[in-house]
């Protein structure tokens, strides 16, 4: 097991490097330009100078090497310095600078992370908490009205895109009823009960939209996995031994059914960090998803590249975690 993990970790390094290189090339070949959203009143020669001052005058391999150096050496040293509080750990030299803000990309990512974790993370947790019981009960009472209703709701959650449900909720709850604010206040500091209520109110709509979507997916998985196990021989044996239905379903079936579901949940965790681009934009929750999309629009290459590679690392890491979890949960699976 240990050998396997080590092997996978070592293999992950060239994988991530390769991903970074491909993303860099894609950005390089994409036709956008960081000067494109500047007004036409800026003359071409000034544009050219601005482009040069962004470092775009250098050859692509030089820029990739510089980015790689900053990403793997300079930025981690700054992170380490930030965590330990020892300023001298931070290496001198240029950091990865965003074209839009001319400030270090890492600082902006750190600033945006909490919003995304709060809203998207919470909706993921809610999604799991809601979907597991619904999935279990739907499978246990297959084709009952509860199962039908659950199937209907998860189909709705699956098929309605968030760019539809988001504005719909806004129209109903903000404009008609006036319960929740349209604009998410990212500066709100929760230090009193009333602020906490305000935070709940402004989070309600985006969290609901995302929860519906997450729950829909996990419910279907949970239900399918339960149904697979319900007809297994060991279930009949358990019942024959005279165990109560509660013990049969919640102890025997649920535990076995959770194995694939847990890995699915683990694989979904990186999406918390990538944020929900559309939902964040609609509700102005200025998190990582919104950061990524504005950076793409503005052709802010260092920002897009850094964010995408961070996401790639998370995805590679959680794939590994899911595989290991699988082996831990299911003793029948051995990788060695």
């Amino acid at each position: 097991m240990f050998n396997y993990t080590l092997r996978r970790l070592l293999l992950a390094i060239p994988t991530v490097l390769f991903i970074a290189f491909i993303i860099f090339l894609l950005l390089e070949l994409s036709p956008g330009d960081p000067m494109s959203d500047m007004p036409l009143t800026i003359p071409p020669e000034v544009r050219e100078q601005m482009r040069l001052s962004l470092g775009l005058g250098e050859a692509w391999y030089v820029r990739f090497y510089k980015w790689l150096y900053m990403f793997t050496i300079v930025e981690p040293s700054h992170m380490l310095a930030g965590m330990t509080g020892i300023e001298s750990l931070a290496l001198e030299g240029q950091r990865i600078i965003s074209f839009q803000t001319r400030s270090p990309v890492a600082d902006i990512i750190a600033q945006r992370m909490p919003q995304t974790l709060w809203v998207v993370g919470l909706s993921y947790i809610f999604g799991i908490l809601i979907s597991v019981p619904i999935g279990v009960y739907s499978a246990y009472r297959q084709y009952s009205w509860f199962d039908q209703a659950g199937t209907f709701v998860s189909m709705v959650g699956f098929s309605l895109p968030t760019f539809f449900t988001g504005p719909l909720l806004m129209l109903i709850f903000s404009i008609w009823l006036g319960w929740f604010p349209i604009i998410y206040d990212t500066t709100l500091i929760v230090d009193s009960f009333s602020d906490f209520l305000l935070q709940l109110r402004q989070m309600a709509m985006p969290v609901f939209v995302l929860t519906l979507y997450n729950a829909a997916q996990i419910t279907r998985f949970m239900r399918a996995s339960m149904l697979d196990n319900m007809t297994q021989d060991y279930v009949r044996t358990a019942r024959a031994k005279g165990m109560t239905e509660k013990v049969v379903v919640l102890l025997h079936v649920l535990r076995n059914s959770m194995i694939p579901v847990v890995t699915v949940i683990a694989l979904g965790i990186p999406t918390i960090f990538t944020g929900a681009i559309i939902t964040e934009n609609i509700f102005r929750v200025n998190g990582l998803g919104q950061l990524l999309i504005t950076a793409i629009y503005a052709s802010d290459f260092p920002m897009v590249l850094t964010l995408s590679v961070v996401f790639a690392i998370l995805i590679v890491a959680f794939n590994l975690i899911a595989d290991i979890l699988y082996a831990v949960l299911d003793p029948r699976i051995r990788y060695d």
Partner: protein
Amino acid sequence: MTSRMSLLGAAAALALTPFAAMAERGASGHLNMVYWQAPSIMNPYLSGGTKEQEASSIVLEPLARYNENGELVAWLAESIPTVENGGVAADLMSITWRLREGLVWSDGTPVTSADVAFTAEYCMHPEGGCAQLRNFNGVEGVDVVDERTVTVRFGAPTPVPYGPFVSANSPIIQRAQFENCLGPRAPECTDANFSPIGTGAFRVTDFRPNDVIQFEANPNYRDPALPHFATVTLKGGGDAASAGRAVMETGEMDYAWNLQLAPDVIATMAQGGRGAPISAFGTLVERIEMNLTDPSADLPADVRSTRAAPHPVLSDIRVREALSRAIDRELLVEIGYGTAGRPACNLVPNPPIFASEANDNCLVQDLDRARALLDEAGWTPGADGIRVNAEGRRLVLDYQTSTNAVRQDFQALIQQWWREIGVEANLRNINASVFFGGDPGSPDTFQKFYADVEMYANNFTGTDPQNYLGALRCGLEPRPETQWQGENINRFCDPAYDALHAELTQTANIEERGRIARQLNDILVQNFVVVPLVDRGRVDAHANSLGGVRLNVWDSGLWNIAEWHRIQ
């Protein structure tokens, strides 16, 4: 009776004036603004974007700026230097500014002429990539005369010397703060770029790039009674529609910037009753540009769309005129812009002194005249209604623009009108970041102009069109040798035009400048090289409880934010 009425009116106006009730700084409390494009930086010298210019104008101020009528008013300077008052040298080679007395930065230190000179040094640094370099065009040097006086020297006679340090494009920055941020070191100064120290009514307390900015009243602001608001939040991001809603329907926000929305959408929002849209017109004109060179893909890359290959169809002025006459500009405005647009017949629609009145006949759509012109030019209707010339060439034009709902509506309408006169248009739309991106490797940039006609909007900053009109001189066209950079998009070249423009650059008298600029405008428009469509205004919205807003398209919309106040 009438005098009594007016007295009563005056009394009522006085009673309604909120200044009387709260003549103290910060009495109006908190102001919430929403910009659906979020500002990325507070330093306008490092970003040419409008959103950054507007946001930074809350903090940073110029020596002089344009008011809502486009008139130059002294801001940090005592007065506007002119030739008459001796501020501008008689030979037009220099301008001398004098700062107001007792000016201080928000950190309490005095504003001196050294700061002004430093601002020029900062922007003119060869490695800085300053976005506002155009304002410093032709500046030879900036000399400090004394504590409060500075002289800008030009390399050539400059009849309009109001480029450097004028308007929100070119505000004064503090030397002490930016001293170590010159040239290539500019991006290292994150704190200075995010929280510049200024002279404006507010100072930054928290800046989150592309998200939100918080301000508080500047304790050292020069007018002790201003600003009326104590704190300001500028929230960015989202879309124009929900920004408009937040002001006019839910009342969460007090001010929303640049609502580029369909006219009926804005009208519906205004029925929400919490706020109202306001609009103002500047110099932004949506136009069709005619390619005077051949964009045919059969030509070699170094000839295609260059002056080496004249356009086989559009070189004929009669065809160009027919295309313009077939357009119903009133209908375009009604469908695309509503109150935020006016039909345009001129490339320079504003300010009034530069706006020609010679072209107003473009307002009436004249399909018969258009057909007659095409007949005259030898294009006769073919079997399918599309015209064919003697050589058998069909009158088919490629018509490109950027991807944008209004522009695609315009394309469809114009395609229809052109079809009625026997011209077929192949429509294309290109993502804005590519179209305006200027990447010489891309075939789809508006500069490369690999199409017969293209549509977009352009304007000029400030109130003087000299540089704007100068763009269409010979030799300034994008071509392979210039990496396809250049502003003469039409590849227009007329020595008479160039000579007239040269005369403009030598003329200081404003009436004369107006006459010459109008003539230049007429040459372009009457040759149907540029076909103006719509004079586009800017629409903002403010809450009914927000007073003092005077929408200004010549400078920053937030130019008088110090005077904004709450109406009870």
